[in-house]
């Protein structure tokens, strides 16, 4: 009886798999499904773009800005997963903590929210590197304390310590500020003179700043991973840790560097988030982390351009859904699309980089 059920289930699965991978004119059925899905989305959005171009491009602007921030956080998830196959749940809280540190640090300067002054510029020039380096150090410490001793433990153990670190960081932020909204100085130039209508679409300096800043950071990261020696070491470690070690790569140092760089990006993302939204709370990282992690899987976890693309797409889906479908459905839409994509393309949009073992 049990055996029968088992056999038939395997049978059904293999039939399904065979169907999925059935080739038709050079592509599998799964590929067709994926392209049909993409095509439908493009047609639906194009219709809106033609019917109401102003709304469409306005929402596009909002979505890209949000997506850029998600991308910065998603990169940290994807890098860490790529190298040690750990879902670093504390990463979202690292992001929040850096936003709060940024807010506190900017408080030491006589910054002005009303007009953009030289002080504001100096404050930002100090806050970005200080927070990014500090939070990088925090993440390296977390790795040293909570993940490294468990590197050869069963996979679920570091997962639990990661969740633990997430709660600990949230707890620290709660003790610091309580449950209330924490303000972030509204430093970016805003108001008349820094906003304009282009073809009926309202652009503010803030939106543009977020998109450009995130774009620069992602490009720098991609260059670093592909061109630098350390980047090469990271790629090697991700591919085969033991072989990399045999080739003389210091694994611990490489993994620490990965955590450091992931946190540096999250740190920049935190400050950019603060400058863009001006509102923080201790629990922010939970959702931001979940969405960013989803973005990393969406793009193909372990794949750096994939994480950036996934973040961007989730930001867009969120903005379009909020406007065209309704905010209460947004989460359903995001994860519905995610499931659709993963069913037809389990490795994510740009393909997962599976460590070869």
């Amino acid at each position, binding site marked *: 009886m049990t055996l029968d059920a088992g056999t038939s289930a395997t049978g059904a699965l293999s039939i399904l798999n065979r169907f999925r991978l059935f080739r038709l004119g050079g592509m599998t059925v799964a590929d067709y499904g994926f392209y049909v899905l993409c095509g439908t989305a493009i047609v639906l959005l194009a219709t809106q773009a033609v019917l*109401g171009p102003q*709304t469409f491009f*306005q*929402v596009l602007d*909002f*979505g890209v800005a*949000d997506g850029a921030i998600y991308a910065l956080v998603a990169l940290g998830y994807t890098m860490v997963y790529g190298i040690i196959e750990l879902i670093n749940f504390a990463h979202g809280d690292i992001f929040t903590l850096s936003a709060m540190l940024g807010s506190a640090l900017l408080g030491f300067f006589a910054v002005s*929210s009303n007009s953009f002054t030289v002080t504001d510029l100096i404050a930002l020039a100090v806050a970005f590197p200080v927070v990014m380096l500090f939070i990088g150090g925090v993440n390296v410490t977390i790795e040293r304390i909570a993940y490294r001793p468990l590197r050869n433990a069963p996979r679920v153990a570091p997962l639990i310590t990661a969740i633990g670190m997430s709660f600990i960081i949230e707890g620290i932020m709660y003790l610091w500020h309580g*449950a*209330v*909204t924490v*303000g972030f*100085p*509204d430093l970016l130039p*805003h108001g008349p003179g820094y*906003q304009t*209508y282009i073809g009926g679409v*309202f652009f*503010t300096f*803030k*939106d543009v700043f977020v998109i450009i800043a995130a774009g620069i950071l992602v490009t720098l990261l991609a260059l670093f991973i592909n061109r630098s020696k350390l980047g090469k070491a990271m790629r090697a470690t991700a591919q085969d840790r033991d072989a990399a070690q045999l080739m003389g790569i210091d694994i611990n140092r490489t993994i620490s560097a990965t955590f450091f760089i992931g946190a540096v990006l999250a740190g920049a993302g935190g400050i950019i988030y603060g400058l863009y*939204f*001006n*509102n923080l*709370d201790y629990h*922010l990282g*939970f*959702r*931001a982390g979940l*969405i960013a992690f989803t973005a990393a899987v969406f793009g193909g976890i372990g794949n750096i351009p994939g994480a950036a693309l996934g973040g961007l797409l989730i930001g867009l889906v*969120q*903005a*379009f*859904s*909020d*406007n*065209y479908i*309704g*905010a*209460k459905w*947004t*989460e359903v839409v995001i994860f519905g699309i995610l499931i659709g994509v993963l069913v037809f393309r389990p490795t994510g949009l740009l393909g997962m980089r599976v460590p070869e073992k």
Partner: protein
Amino acid sequence: MVRARGLIVLTAAALVAFACGSSSGAAGSKGTINIGSDLPVCTVGGQATQNGIQFAVNQKNAAGGVNGYTIQFHGFDDCSQGAYSADVGVENVQKMLGDSKYLGMIGPYNSAVAKAEIPIAAPQHFTMISPSNTNPCLTKEVQAPLPACSYHAADLRAGNANNYWRVVTTDDYQGPAMADYFYKTLNITNTAILDDSTVFGVGIAGAFEAEFKKLGGTVAKHSEYKKDQQGSDFKSILLAFKNAGAKAVYVGGTDDQNICIPRAQMKQLGWDVPFGGGDGIETTDCIDQATGNEPGILATSAGADATQVPAAAQTIADFRKAFPGPNDFGGYTMQAYDAANALMAAIGRAINDANGGTPSREQVRSEMAKTKGFVGVVGTYDFDQNGDTSLKIVSIYQVGGSLSADAVAKSTGVCGSKTAKDACFVWKTQFDFAKA
């Protein structure tokens, strides 16, 4: 620490009572009657409210007490770890019930505490008058579109005669008040509504929508969100509102659900329209969330603002002389003053019922139930059989930006705490639903 403070309050109260007792001489010859209060004294609002009761009792004793009795007042604190606690409130009521000298109490401050206290006090016919509870479910069944109560007012009293009254009106008038203000005062005929999917938010938004449509207005779009799923970006929702033709935004919700962040983001759309909500946004946190776009936020509160009632001016001036501290006077101080006087008036009539002797709790309760046309400083009160006041006043407040130090001092004192410390809620107008 809390115990030590309680001791100091007790000592101070005893000293005051002693001083008054000795100065009023023959007035207090029949002895003392105790009244208590149950308020979150650890908070600024709770302490300011207790001051109103203390002031009323001091005045009464100085004028000869109540029918020959000296009133002794003791304020209980229902704080636990810095915030109100229903459990502590229940303990306080039990202490009062255990001492037969206590004939009534003022409080509690928070509706959730009242829900826990009424069932204990009702069987003992112990009179409770709240200066500040606004949850409609404490006294009545609410009608759709408000969400049904999770408990019944009658069940709290468990078959006993009503022992609970309040001197402020209820939340179900807040939504309609803002609808009236939008439609009649601001001449807005098309609005959008955003609610935070909580019981309070859905209810107040529903009440607003019903009234706004009844007036002839159009609701361009009604959207809802959940804080845990929304994150911080409301811009696309707001854009949909704007495109639907809305000329204002009403928000049903509370600041802890980020309900005022959309106000800040209206700037990023270049959309400048009125933004209003209930008392859940008449808070410092709301002003902080609206960073950069604070001025103009509208909020309601289910009670009259005593500082705007001409008849209250003299009493407030006298109060300020007796309690000169900057935080001694609060939004419910005069409501507490009225509540204390209504209770002492009922005690006075009950003493007559007892032929000049010490009345029973039931006599006080039954006299309180008969209260008609009680003249307080905020207004003249009648009470219905549920314990609700005939004074159905909802105040409207608006955030003023870049206020002068003098204007900040004259405002409600609810101001921004971060960048906009000079942006505060200022009384705008009030709606009287008893007259409507």
